[in-house]
């Protein structure tokens, strides 16, 4: 009967696009905010 596609870790009912937080084909969770690269102001790059 195939795979239960709702169990692959994607929010298929989301109103937002999925690809900006797609963590990859082998991960069963979307990216968290700390996993997503962002163009922060250069002053924030302290370390």
């Amino acid at each position: 009967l195939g795979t239960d596609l709702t169990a692959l870790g994607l929010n298929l009912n989301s109103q937002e696009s999925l690809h900006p937080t797609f963590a990859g084909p082998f991960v069963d969770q979307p990216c968290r905010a700390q996993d997503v690269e962002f163009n922060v102001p250069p002053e924030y790059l302290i370390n």
Partner: protein
Amino acid sequence: PLGPTPLQKEHQVQFQMMEAAFYHLPQPVDTEKLQTYFHRSPVQTPAHFPQSQLPIYDTVEFYQRLSTETLFFVFYYMEGSKAQYLAAKALKKQSWRFHTKYMMWFQRHEEPKIINDDYEQGTYIYFDYEKWSQRKKEGFTFEYKYLE
């Protein structure tokens, strides 16, 4: 009616290569920026810990509910990420302001004694990331050229 098709020799060779690669799969850290200040490595958490995040977790509204210290932690240890950006936004909503020279967040403790076009002066609370605590500073001059 087609039935399974046995693998030809070239596919068997491909399978061997694929199988070898299966034993060292790409990990999320393989394509993350190198961070010398805070090493991230995945850890298996107990099953009763929340294993997935809700969509609300990457909104400013959620970050505004976090404690100030958590926001500072996110800001300093999740550099270059959306989380850092959201933490900064939440801090600003709580009237913290980033000083680009000291690289610290400041908040007015009281109405400044002096305000002009170039600076304001008064008593401030700031978060010292080296001592990891909030401190009070009286008579501090916050030059606007260092206001983020």
